[in-house]
């Protein structure tokens, strides 16, 4: 009896597993490429769309994975499984460059490795696809200067200041505001002496550092609310949100206090809420990394490598784009060709791009 039931169980579960839909079950002979991101996020949906487009264009079999949490312990088993599966190339958004280098070196020995979004230069990867976050931070700084040409009071909001991009972005912003003296001068707010902070050029940064939320959206919102009540009545205010969810969180809190337009908002990344608010004139502008291109380029490079073509490798950093309501002509800034699209146009492009993955 027991043996019989066990057999039924095994057959039932094995049958169930066989019905798990799989991308490309039979070996199609096409190169097998995989991309793993650092977490699940709408940002990565765009990269996934780009990667899928490239997989069509360059005729490869693609597996794209957005892990549940941002942790190396979650990412590693996924990569290991692909290596053992005999994939030709893998693209990784590195979570912890220093720590993961050792593991990635072993990966790079067996398959072609490309890093994207966040680099691990010593891992043996063939190249890196990504924006220089400090340069992109400087672009945010230039937006702030444009919004408050005579200086003013500034607050920065970001997920973390320990990750590579979490350090580079605020550093870029503040460097741009304070050039040449980039470290800031500690001081008190001219009109509100109870506010301590640092001066960067003509700009006063409340508390002298970005407010962090560890990726918790509720915390991101309460950080802004607390800041708004502290700077109540201060003129020439600008709040800058440096992770994708920060600008919408700022806007929400600013709306709740009916301060839209009085508190200037500058953003980062292409959250649809941010883009809509820019088109409406509620947010001044945002700097985007073009994740669609991250996905597309990574797959393009890996597809070429799998066929022995090393000419597709890129060097240097990818260009960011600056999005405002009115847009502007393309400029060359620090050896990068920077585009200035209109928010409404960018939103339309983004929606078209996402169609390929039905989002």
């Amino acid at each position, binding site marked *: *009896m*027991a043996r019989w*039931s*066990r057999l*039924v*169980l*095994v057959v*039932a*579960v*094995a049958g*169930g*597993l*066989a019905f*798990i*839909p*799989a*991308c*490309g*079950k*039979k*070996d199609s*002979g096409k190169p097998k490429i*995989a991309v793993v991101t650092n977490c*699940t996020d709408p940002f990565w949906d765009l990269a996934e769309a780009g990667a899928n487009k490239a997989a069509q264009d360059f005729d490869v079999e693609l*597996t*794209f*994975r*957005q*892990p*549940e*949490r*941002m*942790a*190396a*312990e979650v990412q*590693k*088993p*996924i990569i*290991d*499984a*692909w*290596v*053992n*599966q*005999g994939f030709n190339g893998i693209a990784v958004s590195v979570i*912890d460059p*220093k*720590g*993961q*280098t*050792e*593991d990635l*070196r*072993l990966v790079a020995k067996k398959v072609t490795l490309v890093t994207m979004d966040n680099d691990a230069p010593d891992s043996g990867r063939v190249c890196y696809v990504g924006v220089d976050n400090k340069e992109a931070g400087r672009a945010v700084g230039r937006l702030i200067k444009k919004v408050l040409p005579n200086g003013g009071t500034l607050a920065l909001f970001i997920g973390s200041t*320990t990750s590579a991009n979490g350090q580079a972005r605020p550093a870029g912003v503040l460097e741009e505001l304070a050039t040449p003296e980039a470290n800031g001068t500690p001081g008190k707010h001219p009109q509100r002496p109870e506010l301590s902070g640092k001066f960067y050029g003509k700009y006063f940064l409340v508390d002298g550092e970005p407010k962090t939320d*560890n990726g918790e959206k509720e915390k991101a919102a309460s950080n802004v609310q607390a800041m708004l009540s502290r700077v109540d009545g201060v003129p020439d205010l600008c709040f800058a949100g440096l992770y994708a969810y920060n600008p919408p969180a700022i806007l929400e809190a600013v709306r709740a206090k009916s301060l839209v337009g009085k508190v200037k908002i500058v953003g980062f990344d292409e959250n649809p809420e941010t883009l809509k608010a820019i088109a409406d004139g509620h947010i001044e502008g945002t700097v985007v990394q073009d994740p669609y291109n991250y996905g597309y380029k990574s797959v393009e490079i890996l597809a070429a490598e799998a066929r022995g073509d090393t000419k597709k490798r890129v060097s240097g950093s990818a260009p960011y784009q600056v999005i405002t309501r009115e847009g502007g002509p393309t400029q060359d800034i620090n050896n990068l060709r920077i585009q200035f699209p209109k928010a409404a146009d960018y939103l339309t492009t983004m929606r078209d791009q996402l169609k390929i993955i039905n989002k």
Partner: protein
Amino acid sequence: MMRILGVLGLLVALYGGLVGTYVQNAPGFEPTSRTQERIQGNLIDVASIQGRYGVITLGAAMVIITGGIDLSIGAVVGCAAVLFGVLTQNGVHPFAALPLVVLAGAGVGFGNGLLITRLKLQPFLVTLCGMFVYRGAARLLAGSVSRTATVEAQPEFAASLQMIRYVLIGKDASGELLFPAQFVLLLVLAAVIGFFLHRTAYGRYWYAIGHNELAAKYAGVSVDRQRVWVYVVCSALAALAGVLLFLDMPSIQADSGGQYLELYAILGAVLGGCSLRGGEGTAVGMVLGAMVLPVLENLVNIRGLKSDLIPAVIGLTLLAGTILDEFIRRRSRARH
């Protein structure tokens, strides 16, 4: 015996699916030996994770057998990993830091146990509060820790860290996983716990407490002392798993390291035949139960499922396994 048949069947099916996927996906020109080599490499990777999950599952299962629950396991794992990193970074030799961290874990369990037995608080609440406290403690200790940071601060520890890593994880100096040492460790620990559980009076006390605490008390079992002991062992094992996590992973974030592991441990224990009502469970079942989730996660990875599908597929597979397990037991009970 019946309680492990279900999980055994589930495992056979999962491993069958795994090997099947490899054979199915193997490129036509590849020699069979190469495919075998790749399967073997994959199974070693999976066994390594199974070992770590198993260590905490043993602790969770013992607590569950006595009718308790421990929700602080994941936080203790994270906190222990961070503590090990901080200690070694500040000059405590890894050989000394390892027992210190396990001892600290035992201390945590002792605290949990005292609160539960002396103050008669609900285990669920005590350990849920503990979950926040130990996660907070980890974040107070450091933002993140890693072997690289330790070696940078204390270059003379590099060799001994590597030695511990080789023995407990099975990785060589280049980071290549040679053998699943964590799984070997799990088997050793399971043998020890199995001995206590099935061959000594202590084991009988634990089952008795889980079945009927009052009856055990009247039968002369020092219920409170035994329950404290079980929490001590559970948290000490969690702390050991924290050290394993530190040695295995490139870095540990204090705010996320070990997150959700308490749920995986409880899942492993229950799949392995422990009843959440207490009084049931075997050492063999615990090991088998802990093996399910890593191999299932591996299977969905190699089948290249869409990211959005994965959590649902994992949940439904586990649910299907549980339903069939229950079905088998009911039928066998009806026959007896």
